[in-house]
Every structure is written in C-alpha cells, then in structure tokens.
C-alpha cells in the first residue's frame, strides 16, 4: 500500500529553501533544451512551410543557393513550351522565371549592414506561391521601381516602412507594401517585378524556374527530361524537396541543444541527488516511523521518487515557461549559403514542452533513485534510533 501522494508533494514544497537551487538548475537545463530545439523547430518550419508538392523547381546544376544560380535566357525559351507544363486559361504555360539579387542594406538603429534577398518575380510566380500575402500597403506595379518587403525584415532594416525608399548601387527602390510568407522562406525576401529587377541590376540571366506541371506524372517526366538532357546543365526537383534540403542549417542547432541538454543534465542529476540525499538524511527517523507503522520499503521508495519527480517537474514547468516567453519571437541568422538575413521565429511546440517536461522528470527520478534506495535499505530499528 502506498503513502498518500500529498505526503510527497508537501515534502517537496515544504523544503523549498533547500530545493530551490535544484529546481532552478533543472529549469535552466529544460530552458536551454526547449529554447534551442524551438530555434531548430523555427528554422525547420521556415523552410518546411515553403513550396507546393506539385511544383517543380529548376536551378543551375551545382549551385548551392537559388541566388547563386544562373540560367541563360535560351534555356527559358527551350523549356517554356514543354508539353508537361500546365497552361493558364489563356493558354500561357505556368512557369515563372525568377531572378534573385543579394543587396547589402543598413539595419535599423545603426545596427550595421546585412545582405537581403531581392526576388524579381513574375505574376505567374506570385500565383505559384499562394502562402505569400500582402499585410500592408499594396503590391508593386510592373515597370516601376517598387518593392514589397517582408514584414519581418521590415522590423530589422532601415527605410523598410511603407512609403520609404532605399538605395542599392544606382537603383533606388520605393517600399509600397509588406508581405508575409506564413513562416516560409519567403519571410526573408523582398519582392519586385522580375523585368524591373533584371534591368535595374543588369541581370541577363535568370536564377530559377518554378513550374506547375500538368499532373504528377508529367512532373516526374519533366524532371527526368531536364536532368537527362546534357544541353541544359540544370537541376530539376520538386519545390518542397529543394527547400527541404536548404533546411540542413537546423541540424547543428539541434545537435547543440541535445549536447547541452545531456551535459547539463548530468549536473542536474547530481544536484537532484544531493537534494534528495539531504532530504532523506534529515528524515531518517520519519522514514523509520513509517516503516514501524507498517509501510513497506517499496512504499517509501515510491513516495521519495514521487517527491523528486515532482520537484523536477516544477523545474521543468519553470524552464518551459521561460522558454515560452520567447515563443514567436522573431530572430535572424545568416543563411549559410546566401549570407543573407534569414528570419524565423522561436517555435515552442506542444511536443517540445512535453519533451522538456519528460526530460525534467527523468532527471529528477534518476537523481532520486539512489537516495531513495538508501533510505529504504536502512533497517527499521536503525532508522528509528537515528537522531
């Protein structure tokens, strides 16, 4: 038969002065773990949300980033009338030839300069990326030096408010609106008219083609056809596939999160162990009394594990609460391939919270195990006599 749960809970709370350090220690471990994983989750979300499973993305073979890819005009003429490409109601092939330009712009509040990705995009390209929405102002007009910037970048860069202008080289662009990419990679881009972009930045080449094929089979055929034709030197794959590969950047953060969690948790286990040894030491006679009353060793072990687990859970909740404070907070990193500013949000998912709590309780239980066993191993009479 078990001791009442309130026995464990009250014991965990009543000694809060001596347990607070352990609780905070576990909170710190869980905080670091959840925060770093939420960072990784945010990065994954930013690329994972990008793309339509039906669309085909084409870049130059061997190019590491869309902005580093260059495709000649002739390729566009060759590919655009392929029968695998779906047509609009007006009979135009649904293919967008985009051009990406990296520009160096000043941050807000004299925060230095950073690269920003400009995407020259066609009307077809905008239709193919329905997750991108206008949240302020209006869209750019073709033939004008107008740009719609990501709302998230707007918070980070100078002159990005609607109505303001910024200069890059000889080009001056006026911000006419803010876009939002629904957590996709497009949240780190600024869009303008494709032709305007090419003429402004004197680009003769394209960066990528985005194609909507007739159907799945046509898409597969198109990929095989482009990959198989040595004339092209192009890489074709599904759009989602392309962005998924760009996600690799989250791996080191995940790894770091796990590494720190594991190393720090070793310390936390010892802290919990220390606390519980002290708890058991100061309650030897109390435990002896329980045994005299007829409670078994097992009941004592369970009660102490519950106590340690509960303490750790408190730490876990605290750590998750600290981490949750950053939930949705937008931050940025430098893209590994583009060296441009990539924005993303800390994303504290329910799964991460659950993992954090389980992690905390595990740390608490491991730390409590030895002290609990020691307490239970003591013969009744020895426990009674101790002072």
């Amino acid at each position: 038969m078990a001791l009442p749960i309130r026995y464990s809970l009250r014991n965990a709370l009543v000694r809060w002065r001596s347990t607070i350090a352990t609780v905070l220690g576990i909170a710190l471990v869980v905080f670091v773990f959840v925060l770093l994983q939420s960072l990784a989750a945010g990065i994954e979300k930013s690329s994972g949300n990008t793309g339509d499973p039906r669309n085909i993305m084409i870049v130059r073979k061997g190019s590491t980033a869309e902005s580093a890819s260059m495709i000649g005009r002739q390729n566009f003429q060759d590919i655009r009338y392929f029968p695998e490409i779906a047509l609009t109601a007006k009979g135009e092939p649904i293919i967008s030839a985009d051009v990406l330009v990296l520009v160096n712009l000043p941050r807000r509040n004299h925060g230095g300069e950073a690269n920003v990705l400009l995407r020259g995009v066609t009307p077809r390209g905008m239709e193919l990326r329905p997750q991108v929405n206008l949240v302020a102002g209006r869209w750019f007009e073709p033939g004008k030096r107008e740009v719609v910037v990501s709302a998230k970048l707007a918070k980070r860069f100078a002159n990005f408010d609607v109505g303001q202008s910024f200069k890059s080289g000889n080009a001056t662009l006026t911000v006419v609106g803010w876009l939002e990419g629904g957590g996709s990679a497009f949240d780190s881009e600024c869009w303008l008219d494709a032709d305007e972009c090419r003429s402004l930045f004197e680009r003769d080449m394209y960066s990528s083609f985005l194609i909507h094929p007739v159907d799945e089979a046509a898409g597969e055929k198109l990929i095989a056809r482009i990959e198989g034709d040595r004339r092209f030197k192009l890489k074709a794959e599904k759009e989602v596939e392309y962005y998924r590969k760009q996600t690799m950047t989250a791996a080191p953060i995940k790894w770091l999160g796990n590494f720190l969690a594991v190393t720090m948790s070793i310390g936390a286990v010892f802290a919990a162990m220390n606390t519980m040894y002290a708890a058991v030491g100061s309650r030897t006679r109390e435990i002896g009394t329980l045994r005299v009353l007829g409670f078994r060793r097992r009941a004592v072990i369970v009660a102490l594990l519950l106590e340690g687990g509960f303490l750790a859970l408190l730490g876990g909740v605290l750590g998750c609460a600290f981490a949750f404070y950053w939930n949705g907070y937008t931050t940025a990193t430098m893209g590994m391939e583009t060296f441009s500013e990539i924005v993303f949000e800390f994303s504290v998912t329910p799964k991460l919270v659950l993992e954090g709590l389980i992690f905390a309780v595990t740390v608490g239980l491991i730390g409590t195990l030895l002290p609990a066993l020691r307490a239970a191993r003591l013969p009744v009479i020895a426990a009674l006599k101790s002072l």
Partner: protein
Amino acid sequence: MAETIVKIRELTKLYAQGEIQVTALDRIALDIAAGEFLALMGPSGSGKSTLLHIIAGVDRPTSGECLVQGVDVTKLNESELADWRNQNVGFVFQTFNLIPVLTAFENVELPLLLTQLGRAQRRKQVEAALDLVGLADRMHHLPKQLSGGQEQRVAIARALVTDPKLVVADEPTGNLDSHSAHEVLGILQSLSQQAGKTVIMVTHDPKAAAFGSRSIHLEKGELTR
C-alpha cells in the same frame, strides 16, 4: 488471572561494538498479562528499549523466544512483521514522531491506509481516536501548530486507531513538562483500565511508573525484580 499476552523466554540480544560484545539483554524471562499497564524501568543503557523493540516486532533477538498472543514474532519475516505490527501494536515514541507535513488527522489516519477500510470508516475511526485523546478540535492542525503534549496525544491516537491489543511507549513523557506528562500518563492508564489494552511503557521516572499496574526493573540486561 488474565490470559498471558506476552511470553518471553531465554531472550538474549548481543551487540558487537567493534571488538567487544555488548549483552543488551541476558536470557530474559517475562510474562505480561492482557490488560496490564507495565512500567519497564532501569538506568540508561540497561536494555529497556531493546526489549520493547523486540516485543513490538521492530528488532530481532540474538536468541530466545518472544510470543505475543501466541505468535513468535522472532520467526516472522520482514513483510509479515510489517503487517503484524500494523494490526497488533500501537507505538508511542519519546520524540512523538509525527509526520511534520501531515495534519493531526492525516497522521492518525496513516496506519489505516494499510487496511482494507473505506474512506468513511477511516474517518470515523480517526475522529473517535482523536476524540479519545481530547483533540477532536485540532484535527486539521499540523504538528508544529501543536504543543508537545498535544503532539504526544495525537501520537497516542495514531497508536490506537487500528485498535491494537498492545500499546508500547518508549519514554513517552521524556520530552514533556510535568503537566503534559500527567495528561499523557492518564490517557495510557485509562487505555489499560477502561479499554482493556495491554500497555508497556519504558520509563526511568518513578512518578511515571506509578501510573502503571506493575513495574519491572532492568539492570545491565537482566531483570532484577
């Protein structure tokens, strides 16, 4: 003559203290009748607690037998002994040994949690036991909110709540002022005289022993009278 509830023969307890061997109990023979209030006296280190602990099933002798209600407690294994203690013995300690985080009610309820009794029945018995020691109005107080005398009375209620035949008390008044001691001794006395319980009390205070129906003396592990 009432039936014999405790029958002890040739009971010996040796402790090895390093190289030397200490004889805490030396071939004790003792009969205790049901309903007796026995005062177990003797100087410090004479073996009183050791004897009490063996009778109550928390310690084991080196040799000899100790029958309580016909059961040789020296032959029970650990878990049998735990159940036996829960059902047959009530404990009162010098240091009260209440659980600090539990209220008076919860402390008294503890031994009943090991029985099959339902919540309502437990409540009834706990309230009756606390009533008997005059603390029905302190049910929801924590030990630290009670005086020493009150704590010891709660401890007595906890010892009584399972309605055991035997109540053992090791220097129950050792930490109490004389007024509280008097109250506690009165309760123990009435347990034997009115409730028919067998009470064994260790004390070295003759005034306390005077509450008992009989006194026996231990000296260096041997009964002298």
